């Protein structure tokens, strides 16, 4: 069991999530500059953030036939769900709300992005945006079940849905080591629910940006922030689920949590660049024929181990 957070953790958790997302954006900008043959300086890492005041002060977009209410609701839902997911993610020993169903809470928040992206695609009444919206549903159909089984593997191993119990149950042998399939599927799931890199299908360049194609101003900023916030939240959740949480030698718990989260985040950002966009029509086949059976077998492993204890 982790300690319940003091009142200030209510502010600290979103702030830390935002800081992680900012780091991921800056790291991506540096990698972009290196690939494009531009000199890599500190300014390179800061430049993407000039878009923030620009977006906040932009002229609002008026489109004929747009469903503004649902459109805006979708854009807001994605980052809000990402922030709410941090409620159950322990940082070191501290956790905002140590729910007995923490894993389910995280999963539920992640599923909210389905609604968010679909509404964001529907809102502007534009063909490419709409296609982008239902592309995410097709993608969700592919990634969600394997991801759920990956999450269940860890819960089965710890015989608890409480995230701090899962972190504590690893006793030095990380779940990433003896549940490698679940770990890899979980990481792919993180890229998928943050619709980034190989899972950027709903916002594909072939759709001229898909769900991001028509949206402008603050709404666009929120939706894009949601993308990075989810990437950060997914990385932060990987530490307690698969990497033993805050456990580690010498350093204090919170430092180990931070180190593990940053490493996972870096791996995710690097991996996202090494693969082309995976279309859902191909991924569904892989997910249902290969990944779901594999992850079910993976769930069986901790189940059998626990039965023999």
């Amino acid at each position, binding site marked *: 069991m982790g300690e319940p957070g003091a009142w200030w953790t209510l502010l600290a958790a979103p702030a830390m999530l935002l800081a992680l997302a900012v780091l991921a954006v800056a790291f991506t900008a540096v990698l972009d500059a290196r690939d494009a043959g531009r000199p890599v300086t500190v300014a390179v890492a800061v430049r993407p953030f000039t878009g923030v005041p620009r977006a906040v002060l*932009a002229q609002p977009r008026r489109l*004929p036939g747009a*469903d503004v209410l649902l459109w805006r609701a979708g854009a807001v839902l994605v980052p809000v769900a990402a922030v709410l997911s941090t409620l159950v993610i322990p940082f070191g020993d501290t956790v905002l709300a140590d729910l007995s169903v923490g894993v389910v809470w995280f999963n539920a928040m992640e599923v909210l992005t389905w609604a968010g992206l679909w509404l964001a695609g529907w809102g502007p009444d534009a063909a490419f945006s709409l296609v982008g919206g239902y592309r995410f549903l097709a993608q969700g159909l592919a990634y969600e079940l394997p991801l759920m089984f990956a999450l269940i593997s860890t819960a089965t191993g710890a015989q608890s849905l409480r995230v701090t119990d899962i972190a504590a149950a690893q006793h030095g042998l990380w779940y990433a080591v003896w549940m490698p399939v679940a770990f890899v599927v979980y990481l792919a799931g993180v890229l998928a629910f943050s619709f980034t890199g190989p899972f950027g299908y709903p916002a594909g360049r072939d759709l*001229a940006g898909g769900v991001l*194609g028509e949206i402008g101003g603050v709404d666009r900023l929120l939706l894009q922030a949601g993308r990075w916030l989810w990437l950060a939240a997914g990385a932060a959740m990987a530490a307690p689920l698969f990497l033993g949480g805050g456990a580690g030698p010498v350093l204090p718990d919170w430092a180990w949590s931070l180190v593990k989260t940053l490493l996972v985040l870096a791996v995710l950002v690097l991996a996202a660049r090494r693969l082309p966009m995976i279309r859902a029509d*191909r991924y569904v086949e892989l997910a249902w024929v290969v990944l779901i059976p594999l992850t079910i077998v993976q769930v069986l492993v901790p189940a059998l181990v626990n039965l023999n204890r």
Partner: protein
Amino acid sequence: MDVTGLALRAAAARPRVLLAALPGGTAARLEAGRLLRLRDWPSAATPAQADLLLVVGPDCPRLHGALDRLWRDLPAPRARVHAADAGAVGARLDEGRALLRSSAGQREQAGTAAAAARDADRKQPETSAGADGSGDEEDPGSRHPHGGGHHGGHSGGGMDMDMGMEMPGGLPMAEQGEDRDGLTLDRLHVPLGPFLADWPAGLTIRVTLQGDVVQEAELREAAPPGHAGGAFWVQPWLRAAAGEPVTAGEAARRRAAAHLDSLARLLAVAGWPAEAVAARRLRDDLLDGAPGTAVALRLDRFARRVGRSRALAWLTRGIGRLSTAQARQAGVSGPAARAGGDVADRYRQWLADIRRDLGRLAEGSPLAPAADEGPRGYWRDDRPPSAALMKVLPELLTGAELAAARLIVASLDPDLDELAAARREAGAHG
């Protein structure tokens, strides 16, 4: 606090550029792409994401309407500049940035934009060009899934019921039709092009979508006849045909760069931006006259990563199959015919051709235009190879999903400048 000033400075610090390439503007497009890459000005895919509209290429009155709609969809603060040729691009970019930064310029624009909007309102309900950068003159309502504007021939009784209802934005509802599984689904008429990101300049394909499956694809007469731009990619061949001395090495360099340009587009459409940037860098270095040894190492790494990528092959396998026999019958020559297969076979053929050409950069023998194929194939009886590529497009696109359709177009990458050059030659002879 000067809020407006802050917004303007923020927009000008790193303007996001919507690049609209006109037919014949290939050289200017390449220069613009190179400058944007070096300056770190991101390239926007739609007006909603952009601050600066950069039009490149010789003026084309036929596309004015489409350009105006792109411009109308750009949120303020915004700026619009036009670079007719490659030499002017740098200066125009600076000019655009200055326009973005100056509040006087923005106010002036806001005034004219408001007046234009009032005019438009008076004429008809607002219809804007696609955020997808699409829309051609004939069909201003292209942005809307619920209003293709193409209801000709459709007067089913089912529509009567809708008449009494208030339509969103005053747009007509989509018509319906049977899809490939026999279900009745909405049919949306969406034009692809002429200003879609990573799309052949000047090409417009009208597609009828059900869900995201292309039911019908119809090519629009694309390039305007005989514009002044000249066909950049086939210049060495045209010059050699006109009797000028051109070395085989120069042609090989141009051909390799053309394939890298096509590959960059394909990789962008396939959603692999990191490798698309690598291809563009190699292309720019080759066009800049870099010796083969200077780029060999990077090209090797690029060709290995892309050519041996199992993920990319898995994602492009079985899409847009065009056998060698079919291709030859349609008059297709060049890499598309030699590859004789799907999208994966075609990009691998490009990679193989680039490697071969890299060894030929220093060849000093004169170019024989009839024996040494151009980037897209041979010219036969004044018929450019791209004409044949365009001929096979509609059939390949029918039944494909939208993402696959984009991959098919990118993997054939017809160059419409060739058509214009051919027409001009024919005009000169006749």
